[in-house]
């Protein structure tokens, strides 16, 4: 964990809002290609829930508007202009402000990982200020650097729920003063105990009933800034790292930044085959744009070519079939305490939603099971398997 916060700001030439960050949203665009937008201006709303607005992370010109499959969002790209004007409006009610000013999509429901309904009231809100990956920027340093915007943001979050607001942090000094509404949950030592799921499972499990929301600590700082200044601030502190990073370090940028712009001039010279990841190769995704929940940008080398297809000893061609899940000890370190890895992996592998629900899969989202895949002999990626089971359970509700 790097103790220092970022000293350098890199504004990308282009930013994008992408479908991967807006799960289940079908957009109704408020702008068109070529139009100029100010920072914080609404660029589209959710067609099904028009109260939920999505805002431009920086001022510029709309360069591209694309639909994804089935009229979901593909991407909306904004090219930067020198003039950084921002929508400034003093907000009053916090819920109305977050909805109208583009910060509502920062929340994710558990179970299912959706953007919450405009009038929903969660049983608790979890502010995720802990990082499973030690390469990520230190949340405490980032929060300290920004003064009291984090504490202010927390205060506003307490108005969205009647339950507690949990600050999930690494062990150490409290990131916020504890009160009857704001509580602190310390992470354990293992990476699996630093995931959002570990805190949710321990403090307010939604495996059986209820709904909680999670929100990233940098989004909470954006909430604090919006409520204080009336301006939309999508500043992000991310770590540039990976085998090809010439100078691994934390930098400040904006949400949805173009990863090529961030990595320009940062790649070790003379190396070909750069692959850019938002997040880490195992827990993130290969992407062109910085994802909402990612605080790491990995500059990875192209992997060595896969070995050719298997052959049996007699030289006959063989297809790769399903491989077994061998329930070794190390799998149990990859999920939060109280969720049994091997039985859950078996249930996910065969799509047994009922068993997976009983084993507590509703406390989990894709990122929480990313640690399983590199440890499992089957080589399966459990993120899409979990998503399939969650979708099935959501449909049945």
């Amino acid at each position, binding site marked *: 964990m790097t103790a220092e916060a970022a000293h350098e700001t890199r504004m990308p030439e282009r930013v994008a809002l992408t479908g991967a960050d807006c799960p289940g949203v079908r957009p109704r665009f408020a702008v068109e290609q070529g139009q100029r937008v100010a920072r914080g201006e609404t660029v589209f709303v959710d067609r099904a829930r028009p109260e939920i607005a999505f805002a431009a992370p920086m001022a510029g010109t709309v360069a591209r508007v694309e639909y994804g499959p089935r009229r979901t969002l593909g991407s909306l790209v904004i090219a930067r202009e020198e003039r950084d004007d921002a929508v400034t409006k003093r907000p009053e009610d916090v819920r109305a402000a977050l909805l109208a000013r583009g910060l509502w999509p920062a929340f994710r429901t558990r179970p299912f990982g959706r953007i919450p309904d405009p009038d929903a009231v969660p049983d608790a809100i979890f502010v995720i200020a802990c990082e499973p990956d030690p390469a990520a920027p230190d949340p405490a340093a980032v929060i300290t650097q920004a003064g009291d915007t984090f504490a202010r943001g927390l205060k506003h979050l307490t108005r969205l729920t009647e339950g507690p607001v949990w600050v999930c942090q690494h062990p150490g000094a409290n990131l916020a003063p504890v009160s009857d509404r704001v509580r602190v949950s310390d992470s354990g*030592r*293992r*990476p699996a105990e630093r995931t959002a799921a570990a805190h949710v499972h321990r403090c*307010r*499990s939604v*495996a*059986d*009933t*209820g709904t909680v929301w999670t929100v990233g600590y940098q989004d909470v700082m954006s909430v604090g800034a919006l409520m204080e200044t009336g301006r939309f601030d999508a500043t992000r502190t991310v770590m540039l790292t990976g085998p090809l990073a010439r100078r691994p370090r934390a930098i400040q940028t904006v949400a949805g930044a173009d990863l090529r712009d961030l990595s320009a001039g940062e790649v070790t010279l003379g190396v070909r085959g750069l692959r850019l990841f938002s997040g880490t190769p195992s827990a993130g995704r290969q992407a062109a744009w910085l994802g909402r929940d990612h605080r790491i940008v990995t500059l990875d080398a192209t992997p060595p070519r896969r070995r050719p297809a*298997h*052959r*049996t*000893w*007699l030289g*006959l*061609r*063989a*297809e*790769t*079939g*399903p*491989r*077994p*899940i*061998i*329930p*070794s*000890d*190390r799998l*149990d*370190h*990859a999920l939060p305490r*109280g969720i*049994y890895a*091997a*039985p859950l992996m078996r249930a996910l592998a065969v799509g047994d939603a009922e068993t997976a629900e*009983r*084993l*507590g899969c509703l406390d989990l989202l894709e990122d929480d099971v990313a640690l399983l*895949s*590199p*440890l*499992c*002999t089957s*080589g399966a990626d459990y993120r899409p398997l979990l998503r399939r089971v969650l979708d099935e359970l959501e449909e049945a509700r």
Partner: protein
Amino acid sequence: MSRLSRFRAVGWPAHTHPSSLWLIAATPPAAVALAQGGGPAAVTLLTALVTALAWEQIFATLRHRPPSAHGAVTALVVAVLTPLNVAAWELGLAVSLGVVLAELVFGGRGFGFVSTPAACLAFLGFSFPHVQLADPGAWVAVASLPGAALLLVAGLVSWRVLSAAAAGFAVTALLTTGVLPPGVFVPLTFGAVFLLADPVGASATNPGRWLYGLLAGFLVALFGGFDGETAPIAVVLATLLANTFAPLIDQIVIAVEVGRRRRRV
């Protein structure tokens, strides 16, 4: 993060089968048994290897799947516990039955629910009345320690299972005989690591591993584990029976956890 847990957290890259680690672990005890037994032991080892690998190859070809090298591990473990007075055809038959019925019909290693070498040895012990499984001896026990350490560090063998099995065995032995000379653990070491603690047959949850180990240790003592002559067959039968109960143990552990979770909210 301690060095050990970092090793565990990193693990090895996906798509690599841990069979090679098992093979490394099982080789020293097999080599010691080979050195002690000479020519007949070589015939035993070769028979077991050829039979196990031939069946792996046949099933791999039929299913258009890559064959697993784990048949070699099975063969090494079986060879160590096979007495020298067993004819080659007897061993070949037992290994065939064990490998096919305990592993390959389910789809290969990891898809079955009992330890494959334990199944082979049980077929050998039951099918031929003159066969009494070999006492592996102290040197085999010593030679299996480095492999045991390797498997423990890699997380392939659970320290919970091994400790609980030792405790279950010791307590049962103390209650029934009143004495517990440390020597009684020696003939059990090899079987405990390569049969009892095989993750394919053992429980898959951490509390379950404790219960499974205790049950297995109790069964080993019950079947005569503290007599050097009956110790190997006691471990084999205890492994098969404990393997059969392992899924039930896991179900109980999960039911308790679900109940606790529901009460907490």
